[in-house]
């Protein structure tokens, strides 16, 4: 019995604290504020995500460099050596596109099923649910920077100088990539709760998306001429990844027009010029990137609203 302890100690008064409100539908602003307030949880989840992934493997974090490098080697072998796409210095070109793609690909393939996988947590502990998906994006961002590091080392080793004048565009392009990836990740994680097929479906979509982006081929060289002929160039740019990759490729690969490594058959030993990248001035890249970033921030906010609607019924579906 608590007889003896009736003299209760008054703790810090809560009278000045503001009320938090739980209601049927929170406003976007409230949800963003909640997200911001739980940023420590986000970083905890990202760290545990990374730690768990390589916990019991001998090579550990090295895998996050090794896997992309091996893929890089395979694509180089297939597209530069076997199919002879003629792009000189192809590894640099490939690398610039791959780091962007890996970030997007890793985020989406892990985030899509995350709410279903962690349903035990979702049903028992209170936190903004989209943090689970954002943690996957966060982990992918971590791997992204590791790969950037590896890329930098590679450039040093082969002595390929990037165009430093374009460096300041990279944060813009990266942020656009982040917001776009995060938006898709949180929406897909919520949709999967209602349609479990999405987990498998997304893998096919991602496979298609890979080839719809200028990673293993050059947009300017292989796609642009045909699309321009039909006035459909805009179609290709509906894929936000394209512009982001072009910015990275322009910065790291530098050259827009190069001599092909494959001689023409007719003339013999003539190495024709090919347009690898669009020959836009820097200002065009800037305007396009800043516009894309603005659009992607809006897309992210729309995704937040959508997630808010979808999460209302989670408990009866999980």
């Amino acid at each position: 019995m608590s007889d003896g302890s009736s003299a209760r100690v008054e703790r810090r008064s809560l009278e000045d604290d503001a009320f938090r409100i739980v209601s049927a539908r929170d406003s976007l602003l409230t949800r963003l504020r909640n997200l911001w307030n739980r940023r420590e949880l986000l970083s905890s989840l990202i760290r545990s995500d990374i730690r768990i992934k390589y916990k019991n493997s001998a090579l550990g974090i090295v895998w996050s460099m090794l896997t992309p490098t091996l893929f890089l080697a395979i694509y180089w072998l297939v597209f530069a050596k076997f199919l002879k796409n003629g792009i000189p210095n192809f590894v640099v070109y490939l690398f610039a596109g791959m780091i962007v793609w890996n970030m997007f690909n890793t985020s989406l393939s892990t985030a899509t099923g995350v709410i279903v996988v962690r349903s035990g947590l979702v049903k028992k502990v209170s936190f903004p649910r989209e943090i689970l998906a954002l943690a996957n994006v966060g982990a992918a961002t971590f791997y992204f920077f590791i790969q950037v590091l590896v890329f930098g080392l590679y450039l040093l080793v082969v002595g390929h100088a990037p165009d430093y004048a374009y460096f300041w565009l990279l944060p813009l392009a990266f942020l656009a990539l982040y917001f776009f990836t995060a938006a898709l990740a949180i929406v897909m994680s919520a949709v999967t709760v209602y349609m479990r097929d999405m987990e498998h479906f997304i893998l096919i979509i991602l496979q298609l998306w890979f080839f719809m982006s200028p990673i293993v081929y050059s947009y300017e060289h292989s796609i642009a001429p045909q699309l321009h002929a039909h006035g459909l160039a805009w179609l290709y740019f509906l894929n936000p990844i394209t512009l982001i990759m072009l910015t990275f490729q322009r910065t790291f690969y530098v050259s827009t027009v190069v001599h092909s490594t494959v001689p023409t058959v007719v003339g013999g030993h003539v190495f024709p010029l090919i347009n690898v990248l669009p020959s836009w001035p820097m200002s065009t890249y800037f305007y396009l990137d800043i516009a894309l970033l603005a659009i992607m921030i809006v897309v992210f906010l729309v995704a937040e609203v959508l997630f808010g609607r979808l999460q209302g019924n989670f408990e009866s579906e999980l």
Partner: protein
Amino acid sequence: MATVIKVEGISKTFKIHHERHQSLKERLLHPRSGSTEVFDALADINFSVDTNETVGLVGHNGSGKSTLLKCICGVLQPTSGQIHIRGSLAALLELGAGFQPELSGRDNVYLYGAMLGFSKKMVDGIFDSVVDFSEIEQFIDTQVKFYSSGMYVRLAFAVAVNVDPDILVVDEVLAVGDERFQAKCIDRIRTFQDEGRSILFVTHNADQVRAICDRAIVLDGGHMIADGPTHESLRIFREHLMGSAQEHDHSGLLASISIDSLTTPSGAFHVRSGAGMHFDVHITSQSAYSGNFVLEIFTRKGLLVSRSDAKGSPVNLTPGQNVVGVDLAQIPLLDGIYDVNVGIVDPRGNTVIAWREGAASIQVTYDGREGGLVELGASIRQQ
């Protein structure tokens, strides 16, 4: 005193799918098929909790008490209404729900702390006391997947109670763990009370509510049917339980038994400590029924002094007025007022047929020198 939780007009409706179409193919092929039933888990709940208060939330299974608790913790979104919460809140809904089996105990303490909404710095500050409380010091760097279920629960509880929340929400978690650990938990809850924190305690164990709570809220079928002092609410809870037992009986036989009053030969419920006592229980029954008689005696603080074994006391009721005599040979209680609950339960002791909570209060006077609850007739001498 400040209000820490304010629940305003909370309702929660669940959609129950009788056929779940969760794959794309099924959704496309049968966009509208599979009937959906709407189930109201909570209907227009209003109450508030102040600092320094320990409030019990009672109700039987399916009464909506866990749903309400989940809404308060923010795990569920209410369908309508608002909940205002002030101060930090730690919820013990399911211990260890946030644990990652692949990570070590140490990492999980930090992760779980973050999930409960506490910063790394705060967890740093309490880490030692968490490890201390959980008693798993030597395994703190072992992966949690190698823990026994007891270690798992102890670690989770240790985090939740050490993170210094302003409001603690406890949902029947005391049912887990061995008796010693349960006692430790109850102890910790009492410390919380002494420190002036608010506790919301959910259970269907009336004894636990009586022992811990100042106030109790009773839920039934998603409606709030009582909100008041613990013994008042528990009386309503018991009597309501009886009400629903009648509804479930198809014979209509049981609907007609009521406990009318308790009387003593002298008309008063005064007794000297150590003396015996007799009282009559007046029961009206419309039909013949044989069941078991239950007698409970509580202190005003809600401690159960005695409960008669339901199986050992059969009564045969006849249609009309019945009188059941109760003899208490000797009441060794010390000074105080004791509440008496009486009831009739079915012969198997599962269903309450009739119940009268607080049917009488016995006033005991004692002029001996012992303190506490009972007189043991202690005599102390040197040998």
